[in-house]
């Protein structure tokens, strides 16, 4: 019997336990419910049901649409901001970055409540523009998650690459589209994945901004309220699968980027 010795690996034990208790075991329960019916027998009816039910597929489309528009708007706002921040020679750059991150420190529901009042001032009656409200709320909520990775990536870009491009006769526009933009793709990808996936399920924003149409998160909730844990678990599982697919895709793209980057050099 060895005497217990403290090693670096010991430090990992709390996290391993956390993983077991809060990640692995709920997943097992999720799998169990997703592939069983009310009598506890194995079934794939929940799985096929998801793809044949016009409501779940419609909700998937609607969530996709909201998430997609949110992501695009976030990207369009965040990229210029991140670019300007990263390229500027301001002394107090970090203060500016902080300004964009600060909303994250304020309670989320408080911010959305404030947004609700502002949107009411602008729109008059919120209920007429449910889709727009959802996109505004989500953009407001997730913008910092887009700015940060973009800022990090762009500020680490090597200026000498752009100088080289200009030496070789590229104008500003060409330098941006041929050098800066391709090289900031990793930042874009990680920003997109930080925004797109939460935006598909964050139904609290919709609830608070009076959008009465379900998105994936609220659909799962309604299944559980109707005691249909099996169908609800299956939806959660399929969302998980979609997330996994995105992550794999992202990794694939990052590998590609390196080769493209290498080719450029």
């Amino acid at each position, binding site marked *: 019997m*060895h005497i*217990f*010795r403290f*090693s670096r*690996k*010991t430090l*990992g*034990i709390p996290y*391993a*336990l956390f993983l*077991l208790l809060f990640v692995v075991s709920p997943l097992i329960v999720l799998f169990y419910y997703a592939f069983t019916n009310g009598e506890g027998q194995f079934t794939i009816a929940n799985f096929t049901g998801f793809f044949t039910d*016009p*409501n*779940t*597929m*419609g*909700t998937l*489309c*609607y969530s996709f*649409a909201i998430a997609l528009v949110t992501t695009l708007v976030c990207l369009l706002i965040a990229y210029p901001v991140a670019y300007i921040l990263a390229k500027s020679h301001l002394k107090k750059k970090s203060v500016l970055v902080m300004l964009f991150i600060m909303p994250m420190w304020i309670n989320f529901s408080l911010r959305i409540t404030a947004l609700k*009042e502002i949107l*009411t001032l602008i729109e008059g*009656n*919120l*209920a*007429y523009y449910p889709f727009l409200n959802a996109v505004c709320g989500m953009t407001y909520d997730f913008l910092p998650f887009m700015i940060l990775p973009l800022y990090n990536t762009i500020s680490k870009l090597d200026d000498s690459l752009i100088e080289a491009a200009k030496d070789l006769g590229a104008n500003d526009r060409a330098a941006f589209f041929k050098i800066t933009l391709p090289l900031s793709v990793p930042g874009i990808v990680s920003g997109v994945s930080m925004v797109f996936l939460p935006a598909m399920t964050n139904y609290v924003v919709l*609830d*608070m901004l*009076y959008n*009465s*149409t*379900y998105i994936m998160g*609220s*659909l799962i909730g*309604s299944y*559980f*309220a*109707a*005691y*249909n844990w099996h169908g609800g678990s299956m939806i959660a599982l399929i969302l998980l699968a979609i997330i996994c697919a995105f992550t794999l895709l992202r990794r694939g793209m990052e590998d*590609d980027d390196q*080769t*493209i980057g290498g*080719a*450029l050099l």
Partner: protein
Amino acid sequence: MRKNIFVKLCAAVLICLMITSLIPAQDVWAAADDKEKIVLRVCNWEEYIDLGDWDEEETIDLESGDIIGENSLVEDFEEWYYETYGKEVVVEYSTFGTNEDLYNMITLGDVYDIVCPSEYMFMKLMAEDKLVPLSDDFFDEADENNYYVNGVSPYIRNVFDNHQIGGEPWSKYAAGYMWGITGIVYNPEVVSKEEAATWRILDNPKFKRQVTIKDNVRDSYFAAVGALKRDLLISDDFKSAPDYSVRLESEMNDVSEETIQKVQDYLQDVKDNVYSFETDSGKSDMVTGKVVANYQWSGDAVYSLDQAEEDDFILNFAVPEESTNIYFDGWVMLKCGVEGDPDKQHAAEAFINFCSRPDNAIRNMYYIGYTSVIAGGDDERIFEYADWCYGAEEDEEDVVEYPLGYFFSGDAEDEDYYITAPAEQLDRQLGAQYPSADAMARSSIMVYFDNEKNDAINQMWINVRCFNIYDVPVWAWVLTVCVLCVLGWLFFRAKQREKMYK
């Protein structure tokens, strides 16, 4: 070797976890604790009991004495039980958010002794044989500590005796706690009483995007049925039929396929007409003027009206003329907690009785705004409280005599139970807290539906709330295909270029 230790450690912890999860936690603690103590696990709605800590000014100064909540009712109960029965009881008080949550908690294995679901949920629990019947002692009117049986309103007692599940009346298993009806809270400056006193306000184009409805399938279903059957429900023939209340109840609980389909179509229209399906934003949205009417439970309506009044904003409450949903929240004892433990059952029943003691019922009513099922019996304090809240000042001119005999004594004409109230109170808190006999005549309970019907209604609700894939417009499909093509082409080009560089 290190890895070995890690694996061993993990295994050890896992085994420990498994063992502890096999032993129900309370056994371990109970063994360590004094055996004499009774642990009573109560699960109630959130914010549904007096938690005490009132200001001096909040004292309710009735003629028969002051009432004030100093400590929480739960603490008071523990003290009272020890003084009355000489045994120590410890209440583990927890709360739930919706009836469905409570049901899920119970089915997942949470153990409670006494819970307070709404009528349809305790009907479901009764049908599933999960409840312990109330004991004979509980119904012994000679025992002065049996505040429930001695104080419950004859009206409520009647409902609990006459509604059955599987041949057994509710009253065998359930003791009422709070009750109320559903109605419309509205802003009288914008909406007239006639416009508000119907479920059709939900699809009234005049108030497009200015009315909210409850985000809850059962409440929405009831309102939709009321609106759809309006012509029948308000016809004189129907109203004057001798079996009116029976027929009303069967009409309002109509769950035929055809009706469900109609309700779905109606609610889809409503969805395009209302401001939102809300859970708790209704009141603040009315005060800020975003909405002019919202669907409310009477207890919440009282609270909304009170709160709005504090902001100098007058709201009214109207009971739809088609029919209103009368609901009850009642205490029931669960088999998983109480069965085979007479001490615990005694404590549970004493808890119901303690909550039913008139002064405690008043404290609860004052604190949460809902109406207690307790009328007080020989104790006049509940009626005094109603009078204290809503009775007119002596010099007021525009007053009406408001009969509440149906609730307090069972005789609608009983002259002892008239409140002389300001006329405006009929459409305000008084009309919500103690609805008029007229409104009560057109009230209907909403029963619990069997699983098949329940699934059909839930499916209907999902159909209403979800975006149907067949509704995706053609241009969206075309756009999607175009975007995918462009993306594919870009990807292809990038790959080509990559090859070129290599």
